[in-house]
């Protein structure tokens, strides 16, 4: 039974084409995946179905829900469809709820708005719906406020709001992208069971092929505002007729080529490192409480080794990174780089300083937008005694840019002229320019689209071969860590719970947490990977 029929949907915003003749059909009780990289138009497709396109948008074509063309509905009529016939949840659970309203009220509001129930009754139904999404009375009474819930719990509230009216269609726009893997799998399971039990259709929008593969009956692959391929998930994933689909797949599970050349000499050594924070005082009479972000961590990174550090958000991996870089003082323990003490707050010996560099996650926040690339990537030379000047400096900058696959002329450009992938290359060039032995990669590829990510990973592998670099690869993404590291450590709540050879850990996890993590990570079917 056809529920939604989208025909030649085109959207432009202020004259810029966003969607180009998008057509697809969804049956009742079906999970339909839309997959694509950023800017492919997948979110715009969802918003045009909801009639929530930004100001200045124009849409043509049709989108018929049970034979009603949503695009032709008046705003007033559309209001009665939203939340009623179509529910929608968004990516960012942290900001998607009104901070000053209780969760009960927010769920009940859907019912009240659509005249389904009066206040008291609506709250009762809201209770049921919250129970339905796994937020039970004892822990989650109706008068909780959003800030008292975790991200995953908030996403459940958002789901409860969206399904309160038992819509025929639920649109989930990257519903789990902002969540940790274990939470992600719980939410995905919830969505799956809702589809089955409430007999509604789900449009699942994501960039993650693995998420789709485990869930969707059908899938549409989008690129630059167009659907390049669509059909049954199994079939699409098996055949991969369109080159873009193929490219996505290979990129998603890309294993860069590299040589393992770990020597026995330790490069970085951590001994019983403890890092504590003072929490803000609860009140002025209480002593501030401390939070132990890194609890007694010890490990050795050998020369030439790629070491992975995985863990979910809040596990302390960023704090550990900062401690290793000598940015924060330790409360106890020691860090040695090539046998020299890394002591925060004290001047790092310049010979030592040049041995360690860092690449951060955010390709947008990593560069001062007011400086030219040449100045940006030469920043690590600061405080180095024998720093090159004049032509030497110029050569070093050019060489670093060429090494990461950019042009020497790029040194004269500003950062906003580059794409996310290029920026990450520039970040690597900045790390590379003083020829360090260790580069700390803090979620260095997490913000990149899969195809770009594959390229950057290749570059990292190539550079590590060429310059005998060691990487400390910090990430929440297990699949990436698996493909690029020799050894891996799993961190939970400030402690390293398991470590060992990457292959071994992933195949035979011993710690329950590692097991849970690996199990929760959505994976592409083995047989599909090339």
């Amino acid at each position, binding site marked *: 039974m056809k529920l939604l029929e989208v025909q030649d949907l085109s959207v432009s915003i202020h004259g810029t084409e966003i969607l180009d003749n998008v057509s697809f059909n969804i049956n009742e009780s079906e999970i339909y995946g839309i997959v694509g990289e950023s800017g492919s138009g997948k979110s715009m497709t969802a918003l045009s179905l909801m009639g*929530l396109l930004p100001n200045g948008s124009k849409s043509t074509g049709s989108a018929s829900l049970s034979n009603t063309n949503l695009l032709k509905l008046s705003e007033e009529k559309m*209001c*009665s469809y*939203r939340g009623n016939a179509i529910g929608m949840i*968004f990516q960012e659970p942290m900001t998607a709820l009104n901070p000053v309203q209780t969760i009960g009220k927010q769920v009940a509001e859907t019912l009240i708005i659509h005249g389904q129930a009066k206040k008291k009754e609506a709250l009762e139904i809201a209770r049921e719906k919250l129970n339905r999404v796994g937020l039970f009375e004892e822990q989650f009474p109706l008068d909780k406020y959003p800030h008292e819930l975790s991200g995953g719990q908030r996403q459940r509230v958002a789901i409860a709001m969206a399904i309160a009216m038992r819509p025929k269609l639920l649109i989930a726009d990257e519903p789990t992208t902002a969540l940790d893997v274990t939470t992600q799998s719980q939410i995905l399971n919830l969505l799956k069971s809702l589809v089955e039990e409430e007999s509604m259709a789900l449009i699942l929008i994501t960039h993650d092929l693995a998420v789709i593969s485990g869930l969707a009956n059908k899938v549409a692959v989008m690129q630059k505002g167009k659907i390049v391929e669509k059909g049954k998930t199994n079939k699409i994933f098996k055949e991969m007729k369109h080159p873009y689909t193929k490219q996505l797949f290979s990129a998603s599970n890309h294993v860069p080529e590299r040589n393992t050349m770990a020597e026995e000499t330790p490069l970085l050594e951590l001994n019983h490192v403890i890092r504590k924070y003072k929490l803000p005082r*609860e009140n002025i009479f209480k002593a501030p409480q401390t939070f132990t972000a890194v609890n007694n961590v010890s490990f050795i990174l050998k020369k030439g080794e790629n070491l992975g550090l995985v863990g979910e958000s809040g596990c302390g991996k960023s704090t550990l990174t900062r401690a290793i870089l000598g940015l924060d003082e330790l409360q106890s323990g020691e860090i040695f780089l090539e046998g020299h003490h890394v002591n925060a707050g004290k001047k790092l010996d310049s010979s030592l300083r040049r041995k360690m560099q860092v690449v951060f996650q955010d390709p947008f926040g990593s560069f001062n937008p007011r400086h030219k690339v040449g100045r940006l990537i030469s920043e690590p030379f600061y405080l180095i005694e024998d720093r090159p000047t004049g032509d030497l400096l110029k050569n070093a900058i050019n060489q670093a840019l060429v090494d990461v696959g950019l042009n020497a002329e790029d040194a004269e450009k500003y950062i906003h002229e580059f794409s996310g992938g290029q920026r990450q290359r520039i970040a690597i060039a900045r790390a590379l320019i003083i020829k360090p032995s260790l580069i700390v990669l803090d979620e260095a590829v997490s913000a990149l689209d899969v195809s770009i990510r594959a390229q950057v990973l290749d570059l990292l592998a190539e550079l590590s071969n060429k310059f005998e670099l060691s990487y400390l690869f910090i990430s929440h993404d297990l699949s990436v860590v698996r493909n690029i590291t020799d050894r891996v450590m799993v961190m939970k709540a400030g402690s390293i719970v398991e470590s060992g050879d990457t292959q071994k850990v992933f195949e035979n996890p011993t710690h329950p947490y590692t097991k849970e993590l690996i199990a929760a990570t959505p994976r592409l079917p083995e047989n599909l990977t090339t």
Partner: protein
Amino acid sequence: MLQFALTRFISLSLSLIAASVVIFAVIEIIPGDPASFMLGINAQPDTIAALREQLGLNGSLLSRYVNWVSGMLVGDFGISYTYKVPVSELILARVWISLPLAVYALAISTLIAFPVGLIAAAKRGKTIDITIMGTTQLGIAIPNFWFAMILVLIFAINLRWFSAGGFPGWEEGFLLSIKSLTLPAIALALPQASILARIMRSSILDTLDQDYVRTARAKGLSQRQAIWRHALKNALIPVLTIIGMQFSFLMAGAIIIENVFFLPGLGRLIFQGITQRDLIVVESVVMLLVFAVIIVTFIVDLTYAAVDPRLRKR
């Protein structure tokens, strides 16, 4: 909530202490002797000395500071040098003009600003929005004393609808008193209303861009319902700050307006106190105003906590 209030309260007390030191220090270095001012140009030195003694101007700095602060704690602000009555009496009499005037002006500005700001936000980019924004820019640019002059010229001198100023006293009847505060309140309220309307508009627009408003729209709320049920309460937070700041401004900043309309309010009391070197009045009233500002800030903070549950648990 209680802890939050307590924490804020202690920081408030510290601010008050700091403020009292600053005020006392500034007043101390003002040149000019209250005694010689009071006795005029024919007075003899020994007369002045006698008066200084009588006024208690001869104590040490520290002892006078301590006397002043400890007196204030029990509501004793000292005796005015020139009026020779307790400062608290003076303040009490004046507060009943300054406070109603501030409240009146604030009421006018809020009553204008809220709907105007809402309309402008709801009609963002439309002609009415542009008109409102232009008008408010003009409102901000007009100096209130100039506006007051024009109001007096038109309504008191030409049309004679209002008296040119003065205050009959509450005992002469509520309506009469309110009427005499009307022109000053309007003069004070116009720029405030303009500022408030702009803040209101931008605050609503900011909240309209929030994810939770999009969520609300996805639930089926219309634009208007989304503003009313979700954006407004959140948008009120910055608006509240401004209202709080405006209130204190209106309490203290009305000096010029009080002069134009010869209202015997706190602002004029200070001004007069400064020119007559009735410093005990000046320091007490300034302290009181700072106190009022800090208290208002405190109340605004508590109101935040009431509006925003995230603050309550801290």
